């Protein structure tokens, strides 16, 4: 039975609730997306601030602003916040929640209440993580990987931090489950698999990783608790355990987790490039299926994190071989994005600048990944600043820049206001320069032998560290400029209109901001998602 639909947009229609309750009790996928946006941005700023403090300590050799134990706590907390609370949920929880139903022609996700529950789980996990930093015996000092025997022996707050990651994992699983069912069951009539836009495709591949890989790390973290509380010897050799088993179990999840971070980022880029090039994306099916291929092969490369751990030589070459294979579907995407741009009518706007930066930075991250994926060269740079630089080029240069691209692309649709593009472009330039000044020197000092996770260093690494710290200040300035510009647009921005960029996917056909149920009538899809006249 067709019910009377509200024509108010999702911001105006509070469904009879007042103040904050209109947000924290709403099951509207768009409001939940905004809840995640606020939460994740807040944690990103906290994690970034901690990273900034680490850079401050490293700006000069010796103990400057903190001691070694504080530094250990800082890099652990920075990692836990950024990985589990920012980059893993990031794009899927914010833009997936907001745009997935609209892009596939649905009124909401399949399980709206479960969706809200996922946010509550996320916040519970996040609060536990915050608690672990300040209460009891002090911030955990194991690194975000909780490696045994650090995590089984450390006297710091490891257990609350482990429980935090466990609860955050549940949130991730439920979001993934929701997206899988939504995509299977709720696509608009006529939207076949190969008429579905590429961002939903990437979310679909990601959701399977979330559902299947996350339970493994959940159990692994509980094994740490069991060993600490009940002396069950999973990882401690003295109790009959094996510390390398922990690394296997942890990376069985945590390497696919890299794809939880990067696949939606690739989906965002696949949306932005055709819109600003005004061309159908080149190799649509190859991009769509390469997401599935990355998700599939990505499960079997975890051992490349463990080349120096004491794993068998046979297993090492096996994982190295598979690691090189996973580069193929990633390269397919990059070739297709570049081919889409070839002879296109490129409109260089802010989202495109971030998308193009993504490709550039992701390529640097990817190619330096080959140095680490290759057995012989990895041994020399393992656990050095080279790994830190590679990781940040992939995660921040990839997922982070994609998040910035997405927020500038979809902001007008989400809030109905256009930001100041000139200021946004200036902020982009500062962010881009700051990012490279911050992380590129770490490749060099890493190759020269600077170990990661050290709060002090030899004098020959001073120049590299100093440049890196200056880059951190530049990057922070750019990010603050970007956020201020976006926030000011909420008040002073010009109305954005329904389709400010000339996009052709379904979100650009609904009113701005979208109404509560997205569509008056569910559209019937008759053509390819990127058909430009």
């Amino acid at each position, binding site marked *: 039975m067709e019910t009377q639909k509200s024509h108010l947009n999702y911001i105006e229609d509070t469904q009879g609730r007042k103040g904050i309750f209109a947000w924290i009790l709403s099951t509207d996928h768009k409001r939940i997306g905004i809840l995640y946006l606020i939460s994740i941005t807040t944690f990103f700023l906290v994690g970034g601030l901690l990273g900034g403090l680490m850079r401050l300590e490293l700006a000069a050799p010796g103990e400057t602003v903190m001691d070694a134990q504080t530094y250990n706590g800082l890099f652990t907390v920075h990692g836990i916040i950024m990985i589990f609370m920012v980059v893993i949920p990031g794009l899927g929880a914010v833009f997936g929640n907001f745009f997935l139903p609209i892009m596939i022609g649905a009124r909401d996700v399949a399980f709206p209440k479960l969706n809200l529950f996922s946010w509550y789980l996320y916040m519970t996990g996040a609060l536990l993580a915050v608690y672990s930093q300040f209460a009891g015996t002090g911030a955990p000092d194991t690194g975000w990987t909780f490696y045994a025997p650090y995590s089984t022996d450390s006297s710091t707050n490891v257990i609350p931090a482990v429980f935090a990651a466990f609860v955050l994992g549940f949130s991730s699983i439920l979001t993934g489950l929701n997206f899988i069912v939504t995509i299977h069951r709720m696509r608009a009539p006529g939207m076949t698999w190969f008429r579905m836009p590429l961002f939903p495709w990437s979310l679909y591949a990601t959701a399977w990783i979330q559902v*299947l890989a996350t339970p*493994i790390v959940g159990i692994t973290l509980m094994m740490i608790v069991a060993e600490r509380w009940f002396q069950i010897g999973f990882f401690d050799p003295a109790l009959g355990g094996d510390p*390398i088993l922990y690394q*296997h179990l942890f990376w*069985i999840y945590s390497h696919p987790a890299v794809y939880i971070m990067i696949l939606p980022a690739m989906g965002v880029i696949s949306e932005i490039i055709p819109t600003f090039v005004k061309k159908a994306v080149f190799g649509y099916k190859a991009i769509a299926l390469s997401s599935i291929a990355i998700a599939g092969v990505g*499960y*079997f490369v975890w*051992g490349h994190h463990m080349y120096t751990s004491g*794993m*068998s*030589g*046979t*297993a090492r070459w*096996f994982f190295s071989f598979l690691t090189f294979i996973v580069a193929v579907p990633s390269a397919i995407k990059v070739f297709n994005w570049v081919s889409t741009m070839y002879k296109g009518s490129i409109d260089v706007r802010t989202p495109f600048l971030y998308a193009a930066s993504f490709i550039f930075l992701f390529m640097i991250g990817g190619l330096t990944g080959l140095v680490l994926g290759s057995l012989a060269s990895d041994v020399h740079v393992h656990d050095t600043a080279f790994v830190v630089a590679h990781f940040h080029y992939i995660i921040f240069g990839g997922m982070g820049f994609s998040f910035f691209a997405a927020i500038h692309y979809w902001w007008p649709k989400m809030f109905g206001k256009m930001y100041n593009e000139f200021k946004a472009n200036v902020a982009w330039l500062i962010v881009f320069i700051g990012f490279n000044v911050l992380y590129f020197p770490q490749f060099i000092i890493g190759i020269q032998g600077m170990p990661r996770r050290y709060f002090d260093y030899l004098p020959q690494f001073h120049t590299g560290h100093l440049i890196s710290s200056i880059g951190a200040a530049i990057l922070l300035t750019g990010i603050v400029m970007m956020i201020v510009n976006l926030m000011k647009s909420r008040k002073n921005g010009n109305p954005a209109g329904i389709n400010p960029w000339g996009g052709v996917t379904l979100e650009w056909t609904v009113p701005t901001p979208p109404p509560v149920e997205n569509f008056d009538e569910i559209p019937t899809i008759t053509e390819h998602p990127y058909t430009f006249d």
Partner: protein
Amino acid sequence: MENHKQQQDHITPYSTMLKVLVGLLFLTFVTITVTGLHLGAFTVAVALIIACVKGGIVITWFMHLKNETPIFRYMVFGVLLLYTLIIVITFFDYAFR
């Protein structure tokens, strides 16, 4: 409506449920029994195989996979294959250490 009808069409009789329960209890007994045998490197493999069979029984009858459309069976098969490969690859390391 259609889904509701489908669900009503697939009520598993109590007798089948009882047989499944007995089967699961028997396999639990087998699991406990084999822990007393010294199977060396195969101890874990045997335990996992029995656990997989039990899981398969639960999914097939208790969770009604038997009555679902093929796509769900493919999905479950894909998941089992994935976990099998993960476990095999992990033990691959131990076998060659």
